[in-house]
């Protein structure tokens, strides 16, 4: 089970505040411990990320219920990446952040799982409880939409990942 700790911890750190991430990490590990027999032996990390995804959704609901407004904003960070100070980033990064934020949440999350969690379509499918074929199609479309957004924002070909063409 130790192998999933760091990937799940990072998945959560990317999407919520530190306190919530720690709580949800513990809850996720507890679920894994209880359901060890259900964990796919060849892809424990995507499965664990899928558990963390649902646990985080539950935490978000609880946070809303308790009207923890300040925490709620950070708990719900799954809706988009944190806004950075443009002075700290390159222009391409700013454009990429904006482009990602303008995608549909589902598309943006697919791209985050693909890039940040280093998952392919099969792993994302496991994490989301979806079919690999469907995820592969959606992932391709999400990449295309991101490129379209970048183009609309005036990003160069390099920022769109088209420098290799």
């Amino acid at each position, binding site marked *: 089970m130790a192998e999933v700790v760091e990937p799940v911890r990072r998945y959560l750190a990317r999407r919520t505040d530190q306190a919530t991430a720690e709580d949800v990490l513990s809850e996720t*590990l507890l679920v894994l411990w209880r359901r060890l027999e259900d964990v796919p032996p060849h892809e424990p990390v995507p499965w664990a990320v899928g558990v963390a995804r649902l646990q985080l959704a539950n935490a978000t609901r609880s946070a809303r219920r308790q009207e923890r407004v300040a925490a709620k904003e950070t708990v719900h960070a799954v809706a988009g990446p944190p806004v950075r100070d443009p002075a700290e980033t390159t222009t391409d990064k700013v454009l990429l952040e904006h482009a990602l934020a303008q995608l549909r949440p589902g598309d943006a999350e697919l791209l985050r799982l693909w890039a940040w969690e280093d998952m392919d379509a099969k792993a994302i499918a496991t994490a989301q409880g979806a079919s690999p074929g469907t995820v592969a199609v959606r992932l391709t479309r999400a990449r*295309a939409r991101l490129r379209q957004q970048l183009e609309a924002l005036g990003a160069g070909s390099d920022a769109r990942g088209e*420098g290799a063409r």
Partner: protein
Amino acid sequence: MSPDERPEEEDRELREHLRGLDPAADLPPLAREDVAALLARITVTDPAVRDGEHDVAPGDADVAPGDADVVAADELADRRTWRETRSSGSTRRRRALGAVVGLAAATAVVVAGVSLGRGTGASTVPLAAGGVQPGAPASLCAEVDVQALEATTSAVAAETLAVEDGQVRLEVTEVFRGDLQVGDTLTVPQGDPMTAVVDGASLTYDVGTTYLLSTVPTAGSSADQAAGAADAEEQPDLAVANCGRSGPDGGELRDLYEQAFGG
């Protein structure tokens, strides 16, 4: 060139750009001893020890990404469904409430929840739904008489306030016998309408209807208490007495209650 035909190299480049936005890029990994301590804490403190709570997992809820509310709602629905299933199954393994009279009494108990907590003011008291469960052989009930009622441990009249998620909530309106008090809330699993016509079946409750309910100790309740608080919390001490000893208020049953309990 269509999006589907983009070279892998371009996708790799886009991926690298996206990684540049990774908010956890600078997050140092946990030390090995911290991981070990975390896992030890989980495995040592888990009260359910892989046998208890329902947990959500990928595929449990088919929901679009980012739709946290729907995920949570589906999860809750899954939990409710699972708990009902589990309650019936696990309890069936643990014990069986003996037959009232007669043959092949496969009376099971559907557990509702927490222990009986008596104190000042109104309490919420879970009851097990005594009675034949779906698929089990029927009891053969004797005719209800005063002697049958006198064998019960408590008897009340209670009005059904709500039926939600397979659980019935009733308020005690009259006490004939036992520790229950007027104003107490009773919770009991709803009976299965499919078995309602079976002799000895669990009651099915209608909202707004008042029922005369008598109770009997659940089988093994003493052993449950001795087994420890955690386990005992899952098992009500009382089950609704079936075989005609409980039912809608009125008529012959009301007369019997008043005769048996001096109402």
